[in-house]
């Protein structure tokens, strides 16, 4: 006991020891490894690496474009960008798996270009943008410390609203390099042990005549004497709480105002500067595939998803879930100020967010057939039907079966704020319940790759279905262009149309020499065209006494373009 105290005191004095955590998540790319991998990928002739911004700590935010080669683009002489799908990694920094999956998806796309005819055909007219790490400063914390789960950057913040910044961080009381939990034996506490596993604490129900036994706190001291523990740790602002839609101003992690951070500004400005992005895929807890949106985001009309879009998102979700699964998935986050919500509600793109990974359901191994079954049954301890804490019990079982050391056993420490009381430190290690061991990543990526291929097949495909010429006599012609969309998706979300964030299809006619318009304008706009063969039309009255060839072009950066010519006076 005396030895233990000595160790504990020592660890209080010493700085945090080197990372104890990394082992289970070994193989994840730190910022340097990520950047070098991106540079590697950018060697491919169909890829290009761009920097769209720099964080407060000076880290680059990179976009990897995959599409037509530079030579191909410049040879075409067409300055208009091509419709694109943007794939974002860990928009919530602690969901590191998303970053890995995003990076690996870029690799898969490049690897497939040799033999995947469908993908190749897609890339003849579209681009992919991969942004594996939109928030590298917040992500860096995992690699430099990883002591607790953190999604905020390092801008000092007043999380507890007392007027001081970052003044009550956690402390590593047991010297394991991690900030886990702390339980204090106290009859006034709200927590009691789970009947099946005393490591798991569940909230006591006093109304059911249960007795609390522990106070449950995060690991550390009350540095600022406000009787709250570790309520104002380092940082910061969470990229995924800093976006403009449904923003929760002055709440923890939201920043002083919307898009206050360099990384937020870089991403949002880049998106607005690139209106060709028609779809956004991202990884985080605001999963709208396993739990599709309904129209209850907010009380006002503009705060709700549009009915037409909800129907389409449900159709996409139904097929996507077949590919990526949803067993045991946790509920989706509310997403106030989140990036996936912003991409739809304020940017107007199709926005699809999925959780890259979560702890799967633990399935006890089937007992061997025959006589042993019964004895195994007998050996098995009696299980209660307690529902509280079942996620934790499941996670403990799953990690044990995997052989992953994911839990710090409760061990007693001396705590200066609780003299004479029993205080124990323990709990789940940070990051492990949202991020799988690296060896699971390829399988996750394979599923997500199939979903990405599914999505590429859904984008709108416009064409000029027919150019109709009515000869009205005396050199007067009515030219009517029928513009069709044979893709599944409409040419924009209904939301983009409603908030005027879409680029309508701009349509223009070029006239043969000697011809002119009877009246009206050479250029016009077509609003949203539905999918699966819907069409829209536009007409001109042309005076062309000598006949000739008229050309029609219709284009929008997020949809693409089509053109055709028609003879007048034949």
């Amino acid at each position, binding site marked *: 006991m005396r030895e233990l105290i000595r160790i504990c005191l020592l660890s209080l004095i010493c700085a945090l020891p080197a990372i104890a955590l990394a082992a289970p998540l070994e193989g994840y790319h730190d910022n340097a490894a990520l950047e070098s991998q991106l540079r590697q990928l950018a060697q491919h002739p169909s890829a290009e690496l761009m920097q769209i911004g720099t964080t407060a700590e000076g880290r680059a935010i990179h976009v990897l474009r995959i599409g037509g080669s530079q030579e191909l683009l410049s040879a075409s002489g067409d300055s208009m960008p091509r419709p694109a799908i943007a794939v974002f990694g860990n928009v919530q920094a602690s969901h590191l798996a998303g970053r890995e999956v995003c990076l690996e998806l870029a690799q898969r796309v490049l690897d497939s270009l040799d033999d995947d005819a469908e993908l190749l055909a897609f890339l003849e007219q579209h681009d992919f943008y991969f942004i594996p790490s939109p928030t590298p400063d917040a992500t860096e914390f995992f690699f430099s410390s990883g002591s607790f789960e953190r999604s905020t950057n390092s801008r000092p913040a007043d999380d507890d609203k007392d007027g001081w910044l970052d003044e009550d961080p956690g402390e590593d009381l047991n010297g394991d390099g991690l900030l886990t939990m702390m339980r204090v034996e106290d009859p006034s506490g709200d927590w009691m042990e789970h009947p099946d596993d005393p490591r798991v604490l569940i909230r006591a129900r006093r109304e059911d005549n249960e007795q609390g036994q522990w106070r449950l706190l995060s690991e550390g001291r009350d540095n600022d004497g406000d009787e709250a523990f570790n309520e104002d740790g380092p940082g910061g602002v969470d990229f995924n709480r800093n976006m403009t839609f449904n923003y929760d101003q002055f709440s923890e992690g939201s920043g002083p105002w919307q898009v206050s951070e360099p990384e937020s500004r870089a991403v949002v400005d880049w998106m607005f500067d690139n209106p060709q992005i028609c779809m956004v895929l991202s990884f985080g807890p605001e999963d709208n595939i396993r739990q599709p949106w309904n129209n209850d985001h907010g009380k006002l009309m503009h705060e709700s998803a549009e009915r037409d879009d909800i129907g389409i998102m449900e159709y996409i979700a139904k097929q996507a879930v077949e590919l990526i699964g949803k067993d045991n998935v946790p509920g989706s986050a509310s997403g106030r100020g989140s990036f996936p919500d912003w991409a739809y509600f304020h940017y107007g793109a199709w926005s699809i967010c999925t959780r890259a990974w979560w702890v799967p359901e633990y399935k006890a191994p089937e007992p061997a057939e025959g006589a042993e079954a019964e004895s195994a049954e007998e050996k098995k301890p009696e299980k209660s039907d307690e529902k509280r804490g079942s996620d934790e019990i499941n996670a403990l079982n799953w990690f044990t079966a995997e052989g992953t050391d994911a839990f710090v056993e409760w061990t007693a420490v001396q705590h200066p704020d609780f003299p004479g009381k029993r205080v124990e430190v323990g709990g789940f290690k940070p990051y492990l319940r949202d991020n799988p061991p690296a060896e699971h990543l390829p399988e996750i990526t394979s599923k997500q790759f199939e979903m990405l291929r599914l999505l590429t097949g859904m984008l709108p495909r416009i064409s000029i279905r027919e150019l109709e010429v009515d000869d009205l006599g005396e050199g007067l012609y009515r030219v009517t262009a029928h513009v069709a969309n044979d893709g599944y998706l409409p040419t924009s979300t209904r939301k983009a149309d409603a908030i005027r964030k879409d*680029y309508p299809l701009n349509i223009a006619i070029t006239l043969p020499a000697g011809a002119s318009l009877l009246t009206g304008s050479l250029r016009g706009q077509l609003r949203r065209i539905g999918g699966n063969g819907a069409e829209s039309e536009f007409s001109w009255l042309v005076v062309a006494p000598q006949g000739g060839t008229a050309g029609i072009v219709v284009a929008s950066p997020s949809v693409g373009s089509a053109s055709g010519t028609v003879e007048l006076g034949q």
Partner: protein
Amino acid sequence: MKYLITTLIIGLLLSTGAVADDGYPLVGRPVDPKVPAAWDFYRDYDAQTKLLKDLAAAHPDICRLDSIGKSWEGREMWVMTVTNFSKGDELRKPAFWLDGAIHANEVQSSDAALYTCWYLVEGYGQMDYIRDLVDRQVFYILPMMSPDSREVHLHEAATTNDPRTGQRPVDNDRDGLFDEDDDDDIDGDGHIVSMRIKDPNGRYKEHDEYPWMMVRAEADEVGGWTMLGGEGIDNDGDGMVNEDGAGGYDPNRDWGYDWQPGHVQWGAYRYPFSLQENRAVSEFALAHPNIGGAQSFHNAGGMILSGPGAEENTYSRSDRQVYDAIGEKGEQMLPGYTYMITWEDLYTVHGGELDWWYANVGAISYTNELWTSFNYFRTENDGSWTGSREDQARFNELLLFGEAFVDWHEVEHPDYGTVEVGGYKKSYGRQPPSFLIQEELHRNMAFTVFHAAQLPRIRVADVRVRQLEHGLTEVTATIVNDNLIPTRLSVAERNSLVRPDLVSLSGGNGLKVLTAMRGGDMFFRQPREQEHDPQNMRVDSVSLSSPVYVRWIVRGSGPFTVTADSIKGGLSTLTSE
């Protein structure tokens, strides 16, 4: 002839104020300014820059000129700091922010900020009231919030209503082209006015009394004219005229409180501070938490606007009381002006600058809308921004001899054929005519100085020491704020914008603080103890109506020193006898 020339020279000298005091005690103007300046016209970017630089060079002890960033087109965002640099640390003095013309067409509002700057600096040696303010407080003054568009308004063809936007290109009509269909000065006379065409079926007619003015015909009347909108042509051939002019956003919908996107709040750009001019101000404000008051000059309509911009963002009762007290004084100082609540009396604004200074900085902030139609004939304010069109026409006829109007004349229009163009010049409608400019600037300056004089001033009023039994000593201090604005507004407490005030005990022999408490009153009948760090008492706010009583129980002997340290209310120290 010689006499005439002499008179002219004297007249020139007088108009720049360069004549030394002739003994007559002229009031209402710095009498012998080092940097003479006239205030009957508007200064462009270069002229403002020159005046600011001249002031900074002439008065280095009380003002300093800095650029806090660059505009979209690369102009400097000048901020003049006015304070006595030899008296105290600038960042520890209560500070006031003043800016002008975030909407560049609201042209006189920029000169009003510049005038304030000039008056404070040149009046310092002459007026005790100003000297006292400049000694113990700081003014940060940014006269040109939208310098790029100011140049456009002053030097290019424009109307009194534009440009409200900055010059960053926006594809307003979403056709892939940026700013390709602006208005056009078809006849090249330097004015953007209206277009009309004779049309037997037109629904407009000439006004009976003021025939240059076009009015809608009554239902049973023949009109004779059709109005064709602002002077311009369809530059991009899409059938629409002037639909994608330069810029295309409202810089005053770009601020970080209650920001909403363009489909909810017209004029919002991409996100709060997505415009670099405003971002420079936001960064400056974050670096100057001592700012406790703010004023933004705009035009027009004779309004002293307070927030909130939107109904749902109510202000607390105690903060509202401060707003009311200052705003009502303003109505006396600015005849024809009305003190108003933006959403209730004007219109809803999300993401406005006014709310941001209050809710994100914790400053009492107003927006003054300079120029009131009351000034046409000083009878009644009819409540409209620019007055009735008849008053406007009559003033033009009687006081300006008709020169504010460009008479209707024919031009050839490429789309419409022969049309007529005519209308008021850009300098008429939202601005005072030359002979009324200085009064408008002065009254608004005076209101701003009054507002600034209400900034919080924390003070340790007394320190009393009493011996208790058992070798204990009791030290009691009274902390007051002599001014109207509290050291922390209730919004600053709620949103945690600045830390609480700190009242600290030091000095004495062998000082050991055992505990400390705040009394709800001078008798400490219901004391609130502070267990943690009792030497530095945390005080939520000190206001004129609520002094704070702090008591320490200590070991050791005096004299003891009490320091009151407020981010917005300054610093004060007193030692016991």
